[in-house]
């Protein structure tokens, strides 16, 4: 019994100390989908960093890819009386009830990275990237880089039918549409994976006279580009010079490739969705300004001129 009393006292003391330490202005609950990809893990670490930087008390809940866990976490946040809720929803449907509860409790909800099928007045804003724009930034870079020269592009698409694959393809095509010297000669899916990217690139190289007819590769994500770079090297060509490589996502490995001169450019899908969300929230708390219903994150272009090794060092600790 004495042990039990001591335990209780310990817990009570801990509570008091925690109360004294957390003089944070804001408490924000963040319901994350899980950690299914490197990007997702990076998003989680960046969100935690941003919260720490702004002295926000972040309550983090990992839903292990399950919607029921996310709904439970949201209800828990509401019961706790947090100041705001961030959520990266695992599916688009089924959020109406719990979002209504948050609204009734006057807790603003900000969606990160993905949208939901629910009435827009149930959440404050969505912070997400514009995938068409990402493709366009990649295309614009190529247009500027090749100038008036003729350039045959091969394209490694993402998973067939997935929205990033459709949108990133469209954006790139829009960018090169008015430049007759650049055209896509071959386009196939590489499923967003390294292995498939390499395999499909090998096929492209064989079909295009050992790669001599290819001027540039556009990959819908960096992983496929990294695989394709391997294939280009094995075919005896120099990636980055013989065949230009441009891709999207900006994961650490592509910066290593850029530092080695094997990749030319990447467009960042920023894992920092929370930064703009915190900005919007702080503004709202300060003077009641409502943000626009959609906040588009920056799709930043990185090239070999941007000191890739430095970016690599910054990014590698984020959990990619």
């Amino acid at each position, binding site marked *: 019994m004495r042990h039990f009393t001591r335990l209780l006292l310990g*817990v009570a003391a801990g509570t008091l100390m925690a109360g004294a330490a957390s003089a944070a202005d804001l408490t924000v609950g963040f319901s994350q989908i899980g950690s299914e990809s490197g990007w997702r893990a990076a998003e989680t670490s960046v969100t935690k960093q941003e919260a720490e930087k702004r002295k926000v008390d972040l*309550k983090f809940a*990992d839903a292990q890819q399950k919607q029921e866990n996310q709904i439970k976490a949201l209800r828990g946040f509401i019961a706790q009386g947090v100041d705001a809720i961030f959520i990266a929803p695992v599916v688009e*449907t*089924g959020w109406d009830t719990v979002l209504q509860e948050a609204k009734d409790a006057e807790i603003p909800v900000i969606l990160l990275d993905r949208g939901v*099928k629910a009435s827009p007045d149930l959440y404050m804003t969505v912070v997400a990237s514009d995938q068409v724009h990402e493709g366009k930034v990649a295309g614009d870079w190529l247009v500027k880089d090749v100038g008036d020269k003729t350039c045959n592009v091969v394209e490694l698409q993402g998973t067939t039918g997935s929205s990033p694959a459709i949108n990133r393809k469209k954006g790139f095509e829009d960018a090169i549409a008015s430049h007759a010297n650049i055209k896509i000669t071959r386009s196939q899916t590489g499923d967003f994976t390294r292995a498939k990217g390499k395999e499909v690139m090998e096929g492209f190289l064989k079909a295009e006279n050992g790669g001599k007819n290819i001027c540039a590769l556009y990959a819908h994500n960096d992983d496929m580009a990294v695989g394709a770079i391997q294939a280009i090297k094995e075919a005896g060509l120099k990636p980055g010079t013989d065949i230009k490589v441009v891709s999207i996502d900006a994961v650490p490995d592509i910066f290593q490739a850029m530092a080695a001169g094997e990749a030319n450019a990447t467009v960042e899908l920023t894992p920092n969705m929370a930064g703009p969300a915190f900005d919007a929230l702080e503004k709202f708390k300060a003077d009641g300004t409502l943000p626009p219903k959609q906040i588009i994150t920056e799709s930043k272009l990185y090239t070999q001129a941007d000191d890739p090794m430095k970016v690599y060092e910054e990014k590698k600790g984020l959990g990619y």
Partner: protein
Amino acid sequence: MSNRLLPFYATLLIAVVAYGLCVMQFPNMFSTRVLGNLLTDNAFLGIAAVGMTFVIISGGIDLSVGSVIAFTGVLIAVLVGWYGFHPLVAFAIALLLSTLFGAGMGAIIHYLDVPAFIVTLAGMFLARGLSFVITTDSIPIGHEFYSTIQSLYWRMPGGGRLTVIGGLMLVVFLGGIVLAHFTRFGSYVYALGGNRQSAELMGVPVARTTVLIYALSGFLSGLAGVVFSIYTSAGYPLSAVGVELDTIAAVVIGGTLLTGGTGYVAGTLVGVAIQGIIQTYIVFDGTLSSWWTKIVVGILLFAFIALQRVLVLVSSRKAGALAPA
């Protein structure tokens, strides 16, 4: 105190102590809001766990629970969303199918004398596969009936909400308690789990009881699916993966013997509540990994299995000591 009730009291004590410790650290957890959330958020788990309690008391197991929940949800979403059925009609069809599905598994288990583990494992794959054949997407259910049900709740003092599905779970538990302890079917289930051969000799209709037990579990899984579809207003073939294991954990933590014969439906409710309390605590804390839920549940399972084993050994030694006298 009877040995049989000891695991139940142990569970109850753990639940109360755990909740007390949580409240000491986060006073906000002592609110009707959290209570309402526990009921609403665990409604589907609790309802399925009642069915699982009967199955385990009878000495069996039902691994198809999670898949049947997903299948029911997808079926309802398709019937309502694509074919324009009224949700109540869709519920009836879904419940009928899930009950028949359970009865079918029960019949195979009994007449072909196949272990329940294998039959319900096959059932798990079958139901999950069927849901994916129907659709691979999450289908929203936008019927008015759904929004009406979702907006119905009793506002408890303190702002907590007792929702329709939370209330339904309590009703199912009450029904389960009555069925287990006050009906002939209930005593057959206990007899079957205690010792099948002597049950047969005593005149328990083994075939009918087995089929009925799995039909009941199928029906309650279907009902859990209905509740889950109201909970998320959508049908999604990937939902409720592994829920069968959570229900088994709730049943065992609730003091039911995995080998059958002993157990309490009320204990299962406490088992569900303990899992819910752990999850709520983790959300309130906000820094712990959510996987701690699994770790704590794992530890509790080990503890309860050990406790039950010790109780069995102690009582058999007592019996042994009495025998020569």
